[in-house]
């Protein structure tokens, strides 16, 4: 037993607070928007130039001028605002975005993050990920604990080229929740049916109490 994608997203949503401006990455992080508690106002930023991202449009109502950072058609909300790319990253670099929730290939015990390239494989680019992790208030990684070969993605040091150094604050994986603290990672929570021994065994990074 462990958490599935939706359970990881639901757990990540517990980190949201009323009034927050948040940037969600592609993949599981996008699912977090389905779990924003009722009555809580969370404004989603899309780094291509929008605050207040709405859901996908109804069929036939797609607008080529209205897309998210994944290039998907979306809609606006009553409180939406549009701006250019320089302004978008000004608010990211200026520390105005409270939180980013991102996927990762590897995270280290000092909060280093690798999620943009694998040497020898096709490199598509970092997009806005390096700006986000360097600029936002809090960085939360949501990912599977192991890669498809069963190897731990939570490591003493990242082996892949970094997206940012010492930038991750919290890891939410299918096995549980780990916080980056002085000296290593601290277990905050275990996923349903996962024992502390299992989580420790699946983690190569140093775990501290």
């Amino acid at each position: 037993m462990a958490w599935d994608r939706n359970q990881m997203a639901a757990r990540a949503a517990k980190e949201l607070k009323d009034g927050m401006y948040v940037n969600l990455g592609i993949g599981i992080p996008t699912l977090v928007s389905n779990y924003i508690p009722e009555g809580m106002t969370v404004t989603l930023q899309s780094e291509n130039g929008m605050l207040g991202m709405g859901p996908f449009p109804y069929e036939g109502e797609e607008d080529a001028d209205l897309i998210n950072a994944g290039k998907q058609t979306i809609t606006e909300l009553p409180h939406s605002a549009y701006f250019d790319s320089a302004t978008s990253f000004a608010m990211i670099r200026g520390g105005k975005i409270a939180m980013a929730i991102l996927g990762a290939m590897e995270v280290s015990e000092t909060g280093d993050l690798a999620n943009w390239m694998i040497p020898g494989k096709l490199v598509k680019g970092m997009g806005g990920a390096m700006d986000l992790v360097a600029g936002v208030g809090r960085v939360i990684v949501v990912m599977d604990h192991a890669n498809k070969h069963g190897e731990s993605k939570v490591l003493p040091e990242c082996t892949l080229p970094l997206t940012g150094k010492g930038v991750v604050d919290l890891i939410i994986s299918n096995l549980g929740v780990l916080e980056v603290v002085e000296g290593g990672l601290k277990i905050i929570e275990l996923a349903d049916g996962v024992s502390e021994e299992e989580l420790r065994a699946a983690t190569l990074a140093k775990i501290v109490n």
Partner: protein
Amino acid sequence: MNKIYPNAAAALDGLLSDGLLIAAGGFGLCGIPELLLAAIRESGVKDLTFASNNAGVDDFGIGILLQTKQVKKMISSYVGENAEFMRQYLSGELEIEFNPQGTLAERMRAAGAGIPGFYTKTGVGTVIADGKEHKDFNGQTYILETGIFADVSIIKAWKADTTGNLIFRKTARNFNVPAGMCGRVCVAEVEEIVPAGSLDPDHIHLPGIYVHRLIQGDHEKRIEQRTTRKKA
């Protein structure tokens, strides 16, 4: 002084030559200067460097200039959607300089504001920082990035007035503002040109001082990822 030209080829007349650095607006296929890109293809100029967040798809956007091998180098943050791009890149025919997206936008904006360099935290501790000046401010490390001073800017807006004041629509504004600012000459294509005085001066997104040439045309405005939901 008249800024309005009859078509994209006329608007680019006298501006193009081999080896230029061109800044282009757009994010994905949203808000790209599709008519000006088509005219650059027709002009046959080559060895171009493009500062543009993306490289289009195989048959639209900057992709149409890759087919004809007119592009020597891309300065971009993400190039994932283009098979011909990947082929030329892997075979060494095409050079790419990856920039973090915010760094790319700020490099354009800075040049447009006469700022040759700026310090940013983005990329510190990564390969992006290799060979760049590092400097500490208030106990934090930053790297020096430089402005992109382009020879020509090509951008796409929704409406212009006859003096070149521009208004964009929704997320199609994106890189069009910083790209429009950083060129020695900026050419804008719009969906509609209206008489001066018919746009609210309080609602101008890019003032006409940045815009030297203007065309009106029909745009395909292709959608890259059509995502929808069903009515309940």
